[in-house]
């Protein structure tokens, strides 16, 4: 034991360790404060938190779980991007290759199950926030950021669903995007769309309606794949990441995790 202790001290007192973790082992209150303040990642937290807010039985840790799963998706997603080309020639075979060739290949599994888990975690997080009444003042705005995050989470999942380019993928997206056809006033088959005319010519048709804008064509095809790929890997994750930063910032600015007044 004494040996172990001296090894530990040796490491903690080495120049390398000290250059990374400025404060050393946070064993005094002063060092505990500095440990949180001095780290970019930890300083997302306040220095001190309500005891009731730290309880797992209060938050269910679901917000944290959603965020952690988002990180899991980011890392596994990046790895998948090394193998995947978003064109109809390659998309399916790349996934097939990944499954047959990549050693210890569970990245695709982790990415897919992580996505499912994230959707469920976000729902449970919203459920918890509702049940503790944490959307009430002063947290109304953060609830709204949360609702947008929920929508983005679903859209992330939805755009990702197409990428394997198998039967499951294109038909699920077909069913999902068919709804856009019925957008009132903006979809080819939506109510009122037929009334938008220039003389005798219908302005809203299958070649320019809401569905066309969503999938980049009259049916699911190469441009849909590219469109969803860009949305899935760039646009939505960046937007979600940005909103998460605001979300966490606001949790702190609204007085930390909620508790009875």
């Amino acid at each position, binding site marked *: 034991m004494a040996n172990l202790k001296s090894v530990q001290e040796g490491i903690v007192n080495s120049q390398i360790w000290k250059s990374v973790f400025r404060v050393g082992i946070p064993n005094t*209150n002063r060092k*505990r404060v500095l*440990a949180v303040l001095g780290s970019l990642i*930890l300083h997302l*937290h306040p*220095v001190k*938190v*309500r*005891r009731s*807010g730290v*309880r797992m039985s*209060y938050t*269910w*840790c679901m917000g944290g*779980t959603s965020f*952690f*799963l988002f990180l*899991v998706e980011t890392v596994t997603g990046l790895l998948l991007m090394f193998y995947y080309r978003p064109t109809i020639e390659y998309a*399916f075979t790349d996934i097939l290759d990944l499954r047959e060739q990549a050693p210890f290949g*569970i990245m695709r*599994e*982790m*990415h*897919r*199950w*992580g996505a*499912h*888990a994230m959707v*469920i975690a976000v729902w*449970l997080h919203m*459920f918890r926030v*509702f*049940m*503790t*009444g944490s959307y*009430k003042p002063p947290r*109304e705005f953060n*609830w*709204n950021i949360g609702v947008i995050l929920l929508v983005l989470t*679903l859209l992330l*999942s*939805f755009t990702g669903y197409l990428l394997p380019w*198998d*039967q*499951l993928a*294109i*038909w*699920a997206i077909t*069913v999902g995007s068919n*709804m856009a056809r*019925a*957008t*009132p006033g903006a979809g080819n088959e939506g*109510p009122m769309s037929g*009334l938008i005319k220039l003389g005798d010519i219908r302005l809203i048709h299958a070649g320019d309606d809401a569905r066309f804008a969503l999938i980049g064509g009259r049916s*699911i095809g190469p441009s849909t794949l590219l469109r969803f790929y860009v949305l899935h890997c760039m646009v939505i994750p960046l937007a979600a990441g940005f909103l998460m930063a605001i979300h966490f910032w606001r949790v702190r600015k609204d007085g930390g995790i*909620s*508790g*009875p*007044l």
Partner: protein
Amino acid sequence: MTFLKDFINTLSAASTSFLLLTSVFAFVVFFNLLEGKIRSKVGAIFIAFGTLFVVVGFAVRPLLYLGIAYFVILFMLSNLGGRLWDKRVGLRLLIGALAAFGLSMLDPNFFLIAAKPDNVPIGAMIFLLGIFTWIALRKAYLNDRQLAAGGIPWEKTESDEKLFTWPDLVYTEMLCMILLTIVMIVWSIALRAPLEEAANPTSSPNPAKAPWYFLGLQEMLVYFDPWLAGVVLPTLIIVGLMAIPYIDTNPKGNGYYSFRERKWEIGVFLYGFLVLWSFLIITGTFLRGPNWNFFGPFEYWDPNKLVPLVNVDLSEIIWVKLLGMPLPKLWILRESFGILLVLAYLSLPPLLAAKPFRRFYLKMGGPRYYVGSFLFLFMMALPIKMVLRWLFNLKYIVHIQEIFFNI
């Protein structure tokens, strides 16, 4: 015998099981969370409802079966009265549910659907929803008792005490991360991600299903046209969620679990989240087979199952069946009853604001009252349409094919 067969058939129809679930859900929540006089009142209301089902059931047969099942379940659950939130009772319920699930897995038809890789997380979600609903309501119940006895909610005993983020919060987070990492790795090794044949735009699978989290919306397509089910209602769900903090001005129940202080908010939210959203997803995942036909959990998904299309429009019921006249040519005349009905439905809020709901109107103020009640009406449109479909085979209330406007 025929009675028994009828009974089972009726109860396994999509909308009946939905109706049953709805009322049982309301019963469990309200009866078990409340105490004293209010509890007996709620009990009386539910008995009145059941009686109504049975009495009307002699004319509209399916309601009779529903009424009977309803009373059986009421009887079984009322016995719990408050004990539902006991840890041991909760554990027993969980074990019972897990055992029922495990036994069901022995059935080949059930196994085929429940063990599909993409369906596994949804199966897990059912249990998670159950467990977390129970936890939240249990905590609410315990806090309610404290408050009723003049005490403070449990959270209050700890909320003034501050802990250092390091180590308390950081360690909890790390524990969660390690646990989750293990779960994700085990899950990923145990269950392969599905990959079907390469995409083929010319051969559509049957059933063609949207991604699982949108199956509630796809299920709504049974009752509403795409412009409502796929565009307007989803938009209103998002708008409605965002509006919650601005409509609900009740200052109580902020930062702790409670039920009695916010019965209506929690009742409506749970109804929307659990019954309308989650249950419809579960139906869409596990109980909708080829041609989007309804299949019981142990039924074989027969692609040739024939379901007679007997749905009729309100205009036909009224003009042809009741008045014995041919349908008028002019749509505004043909659909006049339906349009009036929809308008009447939408004018409920102003009418109710005058007298019975005056209290709410004054407390919330005009804008909050109207936004809130219209959102509520749109939400309730779904179960109402489900019930009408089930009882009267009603297809459309308003059917104006001329401009694709059907409700």
